[in-house]
């Protein structure tokens, strides 16, 4: 290995630098050093296995403490009041939407939902550091990225309700958002499949030469999939301007990380692929912002991938189909919810600067709740898409045999209409 952990302390960007990109060494039989094409290394005459360093792992980069105080002024991104307020309002709006949609699922009004509790900072901090043209590939717990880019509440709701306004035409389960206009690639359920896809997109973007990057989000559980290995390795060997953003929230449904991996988390894998890597405090929106900003700058300038592992905690249940009290303690959850939350940390920061007050908080809560409820009610009243849309977009064109099946459905439904919920659907 030819890696070096730069010893700049916890308070600085703890990037693992790669001294030299791996290039197969030129063959030269006159040298005494090893000539193996597969690695550039010296001989050693003592038997020694390389120890993984999991006790004292890659440090967690943070900019502000739990009370919202900037720890090292040189790392303060110095964002304007307006920007920080926007961060805060987007995070809290997402939180409000989560609460209302979670409840609506509990009441059976939508079929499924996944909240973003505790991970709002990772979404907003990273999204803010990107260019709006950068292409986003996500897993499913990154709704804040879309929200930061301006995806309307009506469209979030339309997707969850699968109503006639849904850009996805009501075909996928709730929270599988996508937006062509906002460069957010439609979410799919199979985990990690987006990772090598992001590498391919980044390769194409590099060839376009238009100063764009790609970001790819995934959880620490998804990082165990073979596709994660594929995506990391391809993006390094094919030199893709890509940011891998891992949300390490401690759990994959019920599986804790000690059953997911035995190395030093996900960040420690990056150097093995020849990838610059960093671990950040995911509850610190400024740390996430700084790391993403720098990774984005270098990824585009140098055409190489970066790996950011944001340490956080999944405060909510995995989904509405999961009761997380079956496998973890309420105390543990409460600690992260009450004592180390990305939203409260940013609020402390704002209040210390008099950018925010209790009154602002009260009125914003009220206003955001009202906005969400209005969108919610509009979405609920809307009809479902025309059943015709069951058959389109399988291929770009309608194939003859699919058209035949479409016609057969209509003939059938005409004859048995009382057995189908036709009145709920667009005509």
């Amino acid at each position: 290995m030819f890696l070096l952990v730069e010893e700049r302390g916890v308070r600085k960007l703890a990037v693992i630098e790669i001294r030299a990109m791996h290039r197969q060494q030129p063959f030269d039989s006159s040298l005494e050093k090893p000539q193996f094409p597969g690695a550039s290394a010296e001989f050693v005459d003592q038997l020694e296995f390389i120890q993984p360093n999991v006790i004292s792992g890659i440090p967690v980069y943070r900019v502000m403490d739990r009370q919202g105080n900037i720890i090292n002024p040189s790392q303060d991104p110095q964002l304007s009041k307006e920007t920080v307020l926007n961060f805060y309002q987007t995070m809290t709006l997402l939180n409000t939407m989560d609460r209302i949609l979670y409840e609506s699922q509990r009441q059976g009004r939508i079929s499924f939902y996944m909240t973003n509790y505790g991970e709002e900072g990772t979404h907003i901090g990273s999204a803010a550091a990107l260019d709006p043209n950068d292409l986003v590939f996500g897993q499913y717990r990154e709704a804040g990225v879309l929200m930061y880019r301006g995806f309307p509440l009506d469209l979030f709701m339309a997707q969850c309700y699968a109503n006639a306004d849904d850009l996805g035409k009501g075909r996928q389960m709730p929270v599988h958002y996508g937006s062509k206009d906002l460069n957010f690639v439609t979410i799919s359920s199979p985990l990690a499949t987006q990772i090598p896809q992001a590498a391919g997109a980044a390769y194409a973007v590099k060839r376009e030469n238009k100063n764009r990057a790609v970001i790819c989000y995934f959880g620490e559980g998804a990082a165990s999939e073979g596709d994660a290995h594929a995506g990391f390795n391809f993006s390094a060997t094919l030199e893709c301007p890509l940011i891998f953003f891992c949300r390490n929230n401690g759990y994959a449904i019920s599986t804790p990380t000690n059953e997911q991996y035995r190395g030093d988390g996900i960040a420690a894998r990056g150097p093995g692929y020849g990838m610059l890597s960093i671990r950040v405090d995911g509850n610190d929106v400024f740390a996430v912002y700084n790391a993403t900003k720098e990774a984005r700058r270098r990824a585009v300038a140098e055409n190489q991938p970066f790996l950011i592992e944001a340490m956080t905690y999944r405060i909510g249940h995995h989904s509405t189909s999961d009761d997380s009290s079956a496998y973890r303690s309420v105390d543990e959850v409460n600690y992260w919810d009450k004592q180390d939350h990305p939203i409260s940390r940013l609020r402390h920061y704002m209040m210390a600067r008099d950018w925010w007050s209790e009154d602002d908080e009260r009125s914003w809560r009220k206003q955001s709740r009202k906005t969400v409820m209005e969108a919610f009610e509009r979405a609920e009243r809307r009809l479902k898409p025309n059943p015709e849309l069951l058959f389109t977009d399988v291929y770009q064109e309608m194939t003859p045999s699919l058209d035949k099946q479409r016609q057969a459905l209509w003939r059938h439904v005409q004859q048995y209409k009382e057995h189908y919920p036709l009145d709920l659907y667009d005509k």
Partner: protein
Amino acid sequence: MKSGGPFPLFTSATVSSVSDMATAARFLLRRANSKLALTGVATGSHGSLGATLLKVSPIFSSWTETQRRHAAHFTYHPDPVPTQYGPTQKMNLFQSVTSALDNTLASDPTAVIFGEDVAFGGVFRCTVGLRDKYGKDRVFNTPLCEQGIVGFGIGVAVAGATAIAEIQFADYIFPAFDQIVNEAAKYRYRSGNLFDCGNLTIRAPWGCVGHGSLYHSQSPEAFFAHCPGLKVVIPRGPVQAKGLLLSCIADNNPCIFFEPKILYRAAVEQVPVELYTIPLSQAEVLQEGSDITLVAWGTQIHVMREVADMAQEKLGVSCEVIDLQTILPWDIEAVCKSVVKTGRLLVSHEAPITGGFAAEISSTVQEECFLNLEAPIARVCGYDTPFPHIFEPFYIPDKWKCFDAIKRMINY
């Protein structure tokens, strides 16, 4: 995933002469254009390549009856020289694939070709010269990882560029099954047409090769035929290979293009030099007939043509031979139209019979042409076993098995 050891991946249909053995040995040296003298390498006793050749060489002197290799199970029938697409050139199938890829890279600046070992020209020579001509950012090797190759190709296509991915053998496409079935095939549908990977084409060598055994012989088209959103295409020779591959590349849906590897060198004919396309989802009637319809694709078409001649000659039976060409979405109309006329249908494929694509054709035709059928539809296919090594001559649905099926159908 690719063959683990020095496996004879040469593509000539038979290895019954010293010159063919030399071809094989060159392939062992990994690449047929090698100018290395065969003997020079064989005298090296330390390297594994030399050792392999030394093991082979005694066969030259003690060529016993038990060492005789089985002759090809088909005779290639060249297509008539196409006149409508401009000048033609003599090409075998791998050269016609190269020609199609060359035309694509020349006309579409976003197009890229990638996979395992494509940079030096590919283990079947399909990409020879393209990297030199178009640059290493357009024709490049990937790490050895099929799920990565297809996932990467999807991403390239999603970003709007043309992606031509190669899987080294169809047998090794299964690690990418998830990316193909759950992702590529469903991209447009699930996003409401916001995103698609219609610019993706996956090419893979396909079908039996005489000695490919379990993992260099498979015909996996039926696995993909059950997947809405994909197109699956298989040519029977160089002219079709180029025209159909160019259609796959131009098509706005993800396509899998299977290349019968036994034909890479064996099939030679005049192929148009310029870009041309042959429409997808259209079967081609190769020979008109009145007594029975024979449907196949890929190499098996050439078996069918021979069977049709045998049936005419020995039984006085007139066969209509149809090359299906596109497995999904397939040309139901052409097949049914033929069966309405002939009243009998035989479908033949190398892949195992249970769950094979012949089952789909058979049940559809039965449903559409019930009143016209005069005998049960026959399926002459591979057996429900893995594809064997030394038993290949007994495994494949050869002309005698097909001929016998026709005989029984006519006498039904």
